[in-house]
């Protein structure tokens, strides 16, 4: 150790930075500003053109001030993402990638998705529909498993292994830590989703070209027979919506893992996932639904109605992100619908992250 003394002296001689805070580099700020501009542009597009879908679906063609919450949350997340949060996110991503079960799950997913056309024998005559339903469903369930299992393992292991001591004794705020963890997980899930989605799209395109006997036939579109481009864009939109669902589930898993043990958090996550999947049913039961004439319909009464209403109010509306039924029926997924889904999902994510921060900021290790 005496050998290292010159190094020590050199270090001691190094000038101490004058600033007291971690300065966010200008390049980072510029990046944030560009992203913010894109978000604002999206908001402008939504409020001028995008809110009205070309397919004439009138019910989603309503723009409310509430739709802006999603944009605000995005802006907030952008500005809260400091370089430090970025570092935490990147490390979370690396850590997730090196988990063996995750890699195995991804490999399994890729293989199944690549071979998904093989399973179409299960529904003869409806092969393309089956492929869309099955392939997407499989990707959805796999990424949901990843989101839940990775999500509950974001913070508790750091506490158990006391790595969090070394991190929080560095210039890292708890908020940055939390946001970094969340974004890291989202990025992990995005990469996984993108890989499986790409594999699925390729597999789907090959299948369609084979079934239609040629690229030209597969690309050609007629009424009742949408072309490959339409299918691919629709499937991509469905995958994007799935990312929204994953963000909600990640935030949920992160928040729950701060309150209860991992196992309990996993169980709660699944329960909430199943509950959230059925949220239109809760709406249906709670009577918040309107019939064709615009009248409210009541299905249950009394305290049960109150309970169902509360469930509907509190649960994340996850079925909004699942457009498989529409996809299977060759109907386009419109931008206004997508944004409403994303916007509400982001709002819910913000609620969950706020709760998570309230818990985490008082958390003692």
């Amino acid at each position, binding site marked *: *150790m*005496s*050998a*290292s*003394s010159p*190094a*020590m*002296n*050199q*270090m*001691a001689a*190094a000038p*101490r*930075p004058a600033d*007291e*805070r*971690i*300065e966010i*580099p200008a390049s980072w700020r510029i990046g944030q500003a560009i992203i913010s501009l894109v978000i604002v542009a999206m908001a402008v597009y939504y409020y001028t053109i995008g809110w009205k879908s070309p397919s004439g679906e009138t019910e989603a063609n309503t723009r409310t001030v509430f739709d802006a919450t999603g944009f605000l949350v995005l802006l907030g997340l952008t500005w809260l993402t400091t*370089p*430090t949060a970025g*570092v935490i996110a990147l*490390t979370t991503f*690396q*850590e997730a990638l*090196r988990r063996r079960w995750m890699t195995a799950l991804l490999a399994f997913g890729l293989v199944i998705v690549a071979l998904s056309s093989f399973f179409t024998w299960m529904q003869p005559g409806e092969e393309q529909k089956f492929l869309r339903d099955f392939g997407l469903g499989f990707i959805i369930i796999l990424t949901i498993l990843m989101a839940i299992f990775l999500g509950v393992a974001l913070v508790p292991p750091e506490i158990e*292994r*006391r*790595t969090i*001591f*070394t*991190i*929080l*004794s*560095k*210039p*890292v*705020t708890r908020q940055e830590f939390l946001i970094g963890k969340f974004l890291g997980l989202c990025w992990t899930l995005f990469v996984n989703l993108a890989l499986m989605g790409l594999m699925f799209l390729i597999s789907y395109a090959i299948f369609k070209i084979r079934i239609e006997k040629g690229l030209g036939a597969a690309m050609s579109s007629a009424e009742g027979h949408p072309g490959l481009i339409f299918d691919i864009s629709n499937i991509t939109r469905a995958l994007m919506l799935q990312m929204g669902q994953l963000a909600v589930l990640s935030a949920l898993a992160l928040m729950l893992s701060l309150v209860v043990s991992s196992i309990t958090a996993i169980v709660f996550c699944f329960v909430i996932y199943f509950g959230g999947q059925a949220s239109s049913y809760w709406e249906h039961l709670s009577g918040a639904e309107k019939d064709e004439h615009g009248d409210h319909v009541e299905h249950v009464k009394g305290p049960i109605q109150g309970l169902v209403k509360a469930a509907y109010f509190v649960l994340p509306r996850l079925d909004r992100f699942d457009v498989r039924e529409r996809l299977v029926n060759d109907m386009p997924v419109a931008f206004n619908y997508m944004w409403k889904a994303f916007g509400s999902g982001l709002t819910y994510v913000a609620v969950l992250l706020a709760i998570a921060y309230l818990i985490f900021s*008082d958390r*003692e*290790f």
Partner: protein
Amino acid sequence: MPTAETTTVANDTAINSAMNGAAPNMNAESQPPRDGAGEIIIQTTDLRKVYRAPFTREGKTALQGLTIDVRQGEIFGLVGPNGSGKTTTLKLLLGLIKPTSGQVSVFGRGPDDVAVKKRIGFLPDGPYFYDYLNSYEVLDFYGRLFAYSAEERARRSEQMLDLVALNKADRKRPIRTYSKGMMQRVGLAQALLNDPELLFLDEPTTGLDPIGARQMKDTILNVRAMGKTVLLCSHLLADVQAVCDRVAIISEGQLMKFGTVPELVGPSQRFEVFAAGVSDGTLAEAGQKGYRYDRQSDGNVAFHVNSSEQLDELLTFVRDAKARTVDVKGYSETLEDVFIRSVKSDGR
């Protein structure tokens, strides 16, 4: 008091050699500042911490009114038995937990202030890192948290790993293959990465072999030599006594003793005088005078006294009895003695 004399002697020797080992940097101008020398950088005032289980009224009191101050440039030792509140104090100082009452200030700010975090380093007890990374990647990660540039991260990582003397061959292996001592070295490297003004070390020598422990102590002394402040938590009292300038002894969350090591230990309290040619008559006389003695295997007699006045009298007595004084040894109290005494007086 189970402490055998031989152990004490061995300890003294260890301290001396440690001091000598660190000698190259310990020249006159970088002598550690003594009591009152430096500016106060850590101040706790009547710090209390009660751990409360959720949904219950009663809690476990971990700290009851701790008031200490740590000064610039010193090595401050926080000692106490397990569960005495050492780690709690450390966590309070790092902002990992919040005090129930009382104040903490580090560099004049709240402990969870990010500006403070830039100036400190922390080695937790039994550190653990992302085990799929190697030591370069770990240090790179921590370097990023300080927003260092890539070159600076690379330079500092290399420098720190040299400093903690981690074998070059081991640096590229994943952390999960490391031994406890190697892990401790990486821990120290990450704590020193940002060239901190204030270093918190929690049980730095646990799990280290004697050589490793020795190197750790050398490093701590080196750090102080560079004008940095070290706050050290340990229950290995010999280590603390060997390196610390000031020590706070806490037990059951209360401050028992607080001061410089000499203050706590005080001057030598026990002497042995070895004499040759002591007659039986003299011995009988000595017995009458109340000196404790025992005859050694080599025929010499060892006399024991407990104060410097008695030593004076004894030496006169031996000279008067025509015996020859062969050797005189003085024993000061160890920190351990002080520690155990304070803990015992606490009603244990």
